[in-house]
C-alpha cells in the first residue's frame, strides 16, 4: 500500500500534465487579448466569417453542375467532360440522352408520334 500511493500520485500528476499540455486544451484556455479586442468584437468577426462561408456554399451549388445546369439550355465550353478541350468558347448544347428511359424522338417526320426508341448494346 505504501508503495502504491507514490505511484498513484506520480501517475495522476503526469496525466494532468499531459492533458493541460495538449495543444487543443491549451487553445481553449482563456488567454490575454494583446490587442484589447472585446468579446463583442470577436463575436462580430465570427459572424462575418460564418456569412462568408454561407455565401461560398451557395456559389458552389450554382456552379457545381447539378440540377441547375442540367436544365440549362446550354453549357459553357469546358463545363464538363463532354466539352473539355473544345476551345471554341461560347455555349455548347448537349443533346437529350436516351439511356433506356422513355424519351420522345424529335418531330422530324421520320418517327411515328408517341413512339419511344429502344436501344441495346451487347
Amino acid at each position, binding site marked *: 500500500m505504501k508503495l502504491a500511493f507514490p505511484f498513484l500520485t506520480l501517475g495522476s500528476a503526469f496525466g494532468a500534465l499531459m492533458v493541460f499540455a495538449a495543444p487543443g486544451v491549451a487553445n481553449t484556455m482563456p488567454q490575454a487579448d494583446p490587442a484589447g479586442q472585446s468579446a463583442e468584437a470577436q463575436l462580430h468577426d465570427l459572424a462575418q466569417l460564418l456569412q462568408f462561408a454561407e455565401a461560398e456554399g451557395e456559389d458552389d451549388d450554382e456552379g457545381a453542375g447539378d440540377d441547375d445546369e442540367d436544365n440549362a439550355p446550354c453549357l459553357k465550353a469546358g463545363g464538363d467532360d463532354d*466539352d473539355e478541350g473544345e476551345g471554341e468558347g461560347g455555349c455548347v*448544347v448537349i*443533346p437529350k440522352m436516351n439511356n433506356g428511359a422513355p424519351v420522345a424522338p424529335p418531330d422530324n417526320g421520320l*418517327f411515328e408520334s408517341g413512339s419511344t426508341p429502344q*436501344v441495346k*448494346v*451487347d
Partner: protein
Amino acid sequence: MKKLLATLALTTALTMPGFAMAKPVTFTTQLNSYGGNNAFLAFYVTDASGAYKGSLWMAGGRTRYYRHLSDWDQATGGDVSQVDGITGASVGQGQQLSITLDLKDALFDAGYQLHIDAAVEDMRDSPSEIVVPLTATGAGQDVAGKRYIATFRYDM
C-alpha cells in the same frame, strides 16, 4: 343496331390506316475489333435527291466528336438538336448495337437511303460507312461495312 354497326365500321376504317403507318424497325450494327476506343455512330436518312431528311440515332453523347461524323455534320450543320432524345452511348469494338424505332411506312420503297457515319478517337473518320436503300426487300439482309462496322442489317 344498323346505326351502331355503321358507326363501328366507319371508326374502324378511319383508325386502321393509322395503325398501319407505324412500322417497328430494328437496326442491328455489329462492330469490328478495330483496336481503338468506342465508336460514335450517326444514323440518318437522305431522300431520293440525296438531301438530308432527318436523324434516326446518335451513338455517343460527346458533342465535341460530332464533327468527325463528317457527312452528318455537313448535312445538319452540326445541329445537335437533330439528335435530341435519340442519343445513346457510344459503342465499343466488337459490340453489337440494336436500335428499335417506330418509323413511318412512307420511308420505305420511296427512294430514301439510310446512312451510318462512324468515327473513333485518334483513328480515321468513316463518313457514310454504310449506305443502304430503305426497302421492304432489303430487310433482313446483311450489309458489310468499310472500316469499323462488320455488318449492318435492318429487320421489320
